[in-house]
């Protein structure tokens, strides 16, 4: 492995870490200015001044913000996010469970959506500007344009309520057999797939088409390769960098942006977990979720960058 490549990778990772540090400051500052008071939110309408004062003292809400920031950051670095203010549960444990659920759902959706998107993109290029291309693009755009909750409810109505083929409640829990788990998430996976499919498919199509103008494609044609062979052997590898980029962006979306889908299918993922805790001003949990989301997002982008760099032959084989 060559040193410019390593240097480039190291640079990207370092930049990512710096960005993460910046984000952590923003998250901390942001949660300080949320409206309302955490003790009030926990006790709700049934809060009495005594109960409020007791709770505030126990939560250490009286310490200065900078002290709390350093405490929080140094502990978070070791994976210790403390305890949730609202119910005293260990955040790392609860968050870990929710995070793995989210990753499970995201991965299941990605396993279907990514190959399908690339395949459809390739097919669209092969039959570009023809009927099949237009059909694929049209359906893809339509599915992306419909909001997730709408697609979700429609699927729920037909497949869960009317036909009763699948369940509308995607609750998963510890010790649930994999087959049941997969059966439970059929509908949310379907919805997520429709949400991310078009973006990746269109990008694949555009990126390959871009390459298709090149001289070497003409050469390949002259050499007598078939349309799909050209795309597969010559166009796709050279269009990989932008495709990986958009795939990674969509993967990140599948992890951090699926609150609506989680809510309507009652899936116990990170999004719902975050929303519940925002509602009760459970600051440590909100911060932990924010940090995890930021890490995922930045991490995915670093991977995309690195993959982009590696797929670029000029960087892989420096002169």
């Amino acid at each position: 492995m060559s040193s410019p490549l390593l240097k480039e990778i190291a640079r990207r990772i370092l930049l990512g870490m710096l960005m993460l540090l910046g984000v952590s400051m923003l998250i901390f500052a942001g949660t300080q200015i949320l409206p309302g008071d955490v003790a009030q939110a926990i006790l709700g309408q049934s809060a009495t001044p005594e109960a409020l004062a007791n709770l505030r003292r126990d939560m250490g809400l009286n310490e200065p913000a900078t002290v709390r920031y350093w405490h929080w950051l140094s502990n978070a670095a070791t994976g210790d996010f403390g305890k949730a203010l609202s119910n005293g549960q260990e955040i790392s444990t609860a968050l870990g469970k929710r995070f793995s659920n989210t990753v499970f759902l995201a991965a299941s959706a990605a396993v279907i959506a990514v190959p399908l998107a690339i395949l459809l993109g390739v097919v669209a290029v092969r039959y570009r500007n023809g009927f099949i291309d237009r059909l694929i693009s049209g359906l893809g755009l339509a599915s992306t344009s419909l909001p997730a909750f709408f697609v979700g409810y429609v699927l729920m109505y037909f497949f869960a309520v009317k036909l009763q083929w699948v369940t509308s409640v995607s609750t998963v829990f510890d010790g649930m057999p994999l087959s049941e788990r997969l059966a439970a998430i059929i509908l949310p996976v379907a919805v997520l797939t429709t949400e991310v499919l078009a973006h990746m498919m269109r990008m694949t199509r555009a990126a390959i088409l871009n390459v298709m103008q090149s001289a070497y494609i003409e050469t390949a044609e002259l050499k007598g390769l078939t349309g799909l062979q050209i795309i597969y052997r010559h166009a796709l590898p050279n269009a990989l960098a932008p495709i990986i980029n958009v795939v990674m962006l969509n993967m990140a979306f599948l992890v951090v942006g699926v609150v609506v889908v989680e809510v309507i299918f009652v899936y116990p993922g990170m999004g719902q977990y975050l929303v519940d805790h925002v509602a009760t001003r459970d600051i440590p949990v909100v911060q932990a979720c924010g940090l995890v989301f930021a890490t995922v997002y930045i991490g995915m982008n670093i991977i995309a960058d690195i993959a982009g760099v590696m797929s670029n032959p000029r960087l892989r084989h420096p002169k």
Partner: protein
Amino acid sequence: MSQELEYLSQQVALGRSSRRDFLGRAAALGLTAGAANALLASAAHAAGPRRGGTLKIGLQGGAATDSLDPALAANQLTFHVGRMWGEELVKLSVTGQLRPYLATEWRSSPDAKAWVFKIRKGVQFHNGKEMTPDDVVATMRRHSGPTAKSGALGIMRAVDSVSRDGDSVIFTLKDASADFPFLLTDYHLLIQPNGGNDDPKAAIGTGPYRIATFEPGVRVIGERFKNYWDTKNRGHADQVEITVLNDSTARTAALQSGRVHIINRVDPKVVELIKKAPGVTVQSASGRGHYVFNMFSNTAPFTNNDVRLALKLAMDRKEMVDKLLRGFGSIGNDFPINGSYPLFTALPQRPFDTDKAAFHYKKSGHNETILLRTSEVAFPGAVDAAQLYQATCAKAGIKIEVKREPGDGYWSNVWNKQPFHTSYWGGRAVQDQMWATAYITGADWNDTRFFNPAFDKMVVTARGELNQAKRKQMYLDMALIVHNEGGVIVPMFNDTIDATGPKVGGWIKNPNAELMGGMAASECWLEA
């Protein structure tokens, strides 16, 4: 009752005849549908509960932040789960009477300042230990005192001391209270071993279900406690599984598809739709919950009673009940008590009268725009309600500006803080508790800033009055004061609307709270 009907209803209960046949036959015999259904329900009860199976309940009102500590219970899920694993000293019947629960009997001193509760014997906690009066004392102490973090602190503040006396527990109160036992039906006051001081979140109690799985915001599983003391009445299903289904559409879909047997909080808008689903029964009950528009009586322009009267008269209550509750509710009369409370006396209904409202408004001399703050979280449809109200006020020449506040922080920044806002009350077990919580000077939640020394005195006097007739008269006088001078506009009392699937048996209408006053999980069963 005709013998034929009685026979038929038993046949239905035993599964030998269909419900539809029965209703048709009953109609032919001249019985109304309501009466026929009631007959059927009582026959189902007579046939007796069926043991076994997993009763599945889908609930709105659970979050990842939930705790099993009963002191911190504040939403629907923690309320229902608490009643599965734990029990109070006394409970409310469907007619609002007190019934023995973990206490077998109770009596007060002649001045109503000391109350003695005899504690039930032979009741076991889930950890195998027998419940003793000491556990009761420890529980009550944990919920009181300056370091307590309990939703029941407001109630326990009336208590001076709690102590054991043989097989009884004595509560010594700061002031006389004829209704004190009613306060102990509060859902936070579940008896825990050693008061829950060792581990408040252990969910170890005396209830029919032991909590086997608790995943906050996801699901809860209760398994029947084999040594439960009252198996005849509760704990019929082997297992109760509660799934958190906060999304209204997800909840109704789960019921329609048979994924759950019971759901709470059916949106009035979809009641007609889900009624048509096969086997689904909508279970509504009118109760004490009500929606309010709160005016601060001590803040201009609401200091002027003519402004308050004008704003009360400009409320079209019938429209509110029809449009927002779709008929699942009843109109309010500007005081927080209705017929579901004991010792209630109705007042003449305040009409919707824009002319009178205009008259009072003109008399007050105020003519600037009044700012009304509202939010979706204040009560379902609160923003629509505010806009309807704005329109009816305009007819009386009163200009209202509706400001929609974010749901986040509504309860800490707007409710009980801003001079004119929308909110709701779940109601309380007895009148005294409702008055004392929100209408006396010095109450933390006096969210209408209604300060009336004469009224305060009446609340205290009524509380200590053991003569029911006299107390009823006092409550009437108090209601009149708030109705005429208070800062609260009560447009409507809302019904609870739950729904059950085809296999649910044992459902009883209960006005105390949703899902049979929190007892559905323990007292319903699954038909074969």
